[in-house]
């Protein structure tokens, strides 16, 4: 695909670990590509499949869901539910012709600013390599 393609990435971050991890990335000035927009939710378990689908429909080239590491969930097992949801959503995406690789689940703790930055850099690169989201291209065409 085009090498200078700038993907649009939507990330969901749980309030307690990953959002705090993103804050720490900022505090420690760990630079990462400016392609990601974060929506804060209280728990990764709050993310519904429809949010993922809607993100792709609205032009996201990649969707990232981040939460506390297993065992560290502020609500005990919300992240386990996120794990199940992501698995189902990936299957759904495949049937829609969207590579399931465009949806990623990552655990980032409040102390992993460096890791947050690495995940962002890595995912941005991976999605850039995949090129634009085909679903959006289709819907955009249909709208036209």
């Amino acid at each position, binding site marked *: 695909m085009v090498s200078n393609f700038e993907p649009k990435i*939507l990330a969901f971050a749980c309030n307690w670990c990953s959002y705090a991890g993103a804050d720490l990335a*900022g505090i420690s000035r760990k630079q990462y590509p400016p392609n990601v*927009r974060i929506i804060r939710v*209280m728990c990764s378990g*709050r993310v519904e499949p429809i949010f993922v689908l809607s993100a792709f429909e609205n032009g996201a080239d990649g969707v990232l869901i981040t939460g506390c590491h297993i065992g560290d969930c*502020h609500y005990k097992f919300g992240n386990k539910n996120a794990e199940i949801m992501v698995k189902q959503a990936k299957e759904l995406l495949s049937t829609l012709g969207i590579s399931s690789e465009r949806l990623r689940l990552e655990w980032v703790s409040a102390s992993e600013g460096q890791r947050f930055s690495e995940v962002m850099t890595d995912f941005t690169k991976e999605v850039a390599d995949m090129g634009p989201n085909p679903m959006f291209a289709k819907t955009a065409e249909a709208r036209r």
Partner: protein
Amino acid sequence: MSDSVLVIGGGIAGVQAALDLANASIHVYLVEKTPSLGGRMAQLDKTFPTNDCAMCILSPKLVEVQRHPNIEVLVNSEVVECKGKEGNFKVKVVKHARFVDEKKCTGCGLCAEKCPKKVASELDLGMAQRKAIYTPFPQAVPLIYTIDSDNCIYFIKGKCRICEKNCESKAINFKQKKREIKLDVGSIIVATGFDQFNPKAIKEYGYDLYENVVTALEFERLLNASGPTEGRILCPSDGKVPNSITYIQCVGSRDENHCPYCSRVCCTYAIKEAMLAKEHEDKIKEQNILYMDMRTFGKGFEEYYLRCKDEVKVNFLRGRVSEIVEDPDGKSLLIRYEDTEKGTYREITSDMVVLSSALIPSSSNEKLSELLGIDLDENGFFKEGEMGSDPVTTTKKGIFICGCAQGPKDIPDSVAQASAASAKAQVFVKERFEVECMADDSELEETENEISKEEMGDEPRIGIFVCHCGINIGGVVNVKKVVDYAKDLPYVVEAQHNLFTCSENTQSIIEDTISKRKLNRVIVAACTPRTHEPLFRETCTKAGLNPYLFEMTNIREHCSWVHSNEKEKATEKAEELLRMAVAKAQNLRPLSRKTVPIEQKALVVGGGIAGICAALDISNQGIPTILVEKQPKLGGRLNHIATLSPSNIKSSELLKKMLALLDSSKVQVHTNTEIENIEGFVGNFDVTLKSKAGKSTKKKQQFKVGAIVIAIGSEEFGPGNRFSHKQYPNIITNYELEKQLAQKKIPFKNKKIAFILCVGAREREGNRGCSRYCCQVAIKQAIELAENKNSVTVFYRDIRTFGKGAEKMYKNAASKGVDFIRYDEGSPPKIQKKGKALLVYDTLLQENISIECDNVVLVVPMAPPSDAERFQDMLKIPRGEDGFFLEQHPKLAPLQTNTQGIFLCGCAQAPKNLQDTIAQASGAASQAIALLSRNTSEVEAAVAKVEENLCWGCGTCTEVCEFGAPGLTSLEEDKIVSQINEALCKGCGTCAVLCPSGAITPLHFTRSQILSMIQAFGGGSGE
């Protein structure tokens, strides 16, 4: 009795004490001599060991103080007279003229901009300049300008008055006179902090000779983005990034000629500064920390030290500097030092030297001690009542101390002491509240939080405030462009930018704008909502706007700070983030917080010294308190300790005194009793006790409490097979030795004894932390054995005698003939049996010496309490990797947990010595008192809500919720629905995702709100 308390000193300790008192419904006068609150913490760039931005976590607290209805802030003021006694002090305060009318000044800053006179800035320690009319720092609280009359041209020459001409609100008043204010207070808290040792006094360091030798506090300002170099680390001589930096520890500290004590914070702050320097300037190739002993004793500090060593690659060199000489051809510095590891002299060169200079008593201490009639200790800090067991009392009844006024310490220890002082100070204040016992069936009551018509309006009217955060955001993101962009977004009626949106004066701007522009939604684009959302929500509430109609978006941590080299893209990102916030704001709905009744009763779990102190302090406020201990006897670890160090007080005497106080108090004590179960939520915990006594008629007891203090202490760490512990009979642990000493047995006479420190502590694999208590205890034991004709050798890695009086004890041990031999992490002493004696090989010294000894004492750390896991599950309070309970915030909330109404103290939170344990216990009591001084409390409104007509009553939510919030109820025949207990719901939203009928909505994170943000992400308006 008076109903007020006077707090002297507006640094973090004074601020915390004032807040605790005010939250317990006590009126507080907070007197600060400079023109702003904030103290030393406001000067710091980051705080260890989390590298949290100091100002970011401090600023919301300062604003809270300023706005608290129970606190009267008197800045620019000094106490000049104090008469009377506890319960009834008559205090005179002089409020110096600031030549600016406090009521009229809006803090706009135009006067300072126009002022022609530049003066060396105190904040930047003379490395930058301020004007003659100034605020100490941009986020000053209160944000009111002050004329420095010593430097003002008008005051010197009688001409100028430029500030007066430019002040739109006519606030300048050159004729303002100082004012005398008389206060009646019941008690006084002294929180006057510390000064910094001036390294000029040690000629060899060349501080006043060489430009590139700076103090750690000066370096802190260089690191700060709003400091003299805007966060760049540059050599003062040539403005270039240094290739190498050397940090020199114990400058003035642990030095008989200057400050014989340990300053407690310097090791960890040098580590912090080295880490941050490398982060700011990647070009720095080499950093050295030259130290005597590495004293990283606090929670998480050892890990921080290892990170600095392993990841940031800072060299840690053990040594003592003899002199620093500047290279005659350049400006680089030659450091000559004694390598105390090898006993040789060495030299290194560095472009920059940072002196970690000692914390010394505040210059005002002497005058204040005379004025208040309280004693100073031998070093000039305030003397506590009884060394070691009464850290916040003074030699005068009714006057208390906290923070660095008592001795050097870090922020969490200062905060804990501040809370403790607040608990003690409340005793001398008129009774404020009657304890009402609530009916048992505590129904949830809804507050009458009427939502005005304007607030709801017909359609959203959004106001946006974009923060520059000095240059933190403004230096990267084009803030003006973002504001212009925001003006065109749907429903936006107002968009503006502020230098610091969190500052006190911006809060009034926001309030005014809400009313003038009839805003019914407010958005702040600034830093993280995790620290600042509460502040802005409160501002909205003050302006009559429901706090849930506020939305925040993070363009600092998530944007300017992480895209600093991509200014255009960062600006674009900020615009998009704002567009998403506007989309959500359109869909926000007002929510009302429910209030729950509070059972004004406290439960203290654990009858050790921490539990006893906490229970006494709470009970002294007239609050019914129940103390539960699982052992048959109160006193915990104190029962097995002979003497306390460094005071040498017999622990049995301290225990006797505490038990007598307990006897004469109203505390209800249950020994031999387990906590069988605790359920419920803040203000309403249902407790079930189970007595272990066999014949007890009432084996089980149930009752309700409003707050819980967890003081379950620690366990003895079992050394396992470390250092051949189990192989030989004459190897014991320090715990075993202490038990014998407590029974007045001196187990050894005329023997050769070896102590090995850090057995099972500070390990790379396994237990990584330092236990804080062990060096001091081992030295105490070593002295006692040496005094009983034993010859004693102590093997150590770093001697960490940081506590008050502890360093002196260490010196004393050496003078009693105790030998100290250092060993390295990688080459610990080995124990071999030889006949009846043991040989301890020291592998570090060049020659492989062996010391013959009869007995070995293994000094072990503290292990987490054995019940920790059970309490973690029962109370839903998390634990850290080390197994101890996790506090809410490592700096500013060391005694709170993530569960409202549950507080921590003593060794359950982290290993610590008696003095720090007692301070924490009283501190936790103070937090519990503040909560229990009211009979209702608000609970979070952003919880799950069930749409009953959609609910099938399938019960999926009840299975998935870990907190028991949803419950099935039959409404009428055939109609079973789920209902949520708002006080139990934590608002995670998982039930909503799993609900098959879509009946559950997590308020404030609703499906439509999030979908609108996603739509806005794609470029839509989110409508």
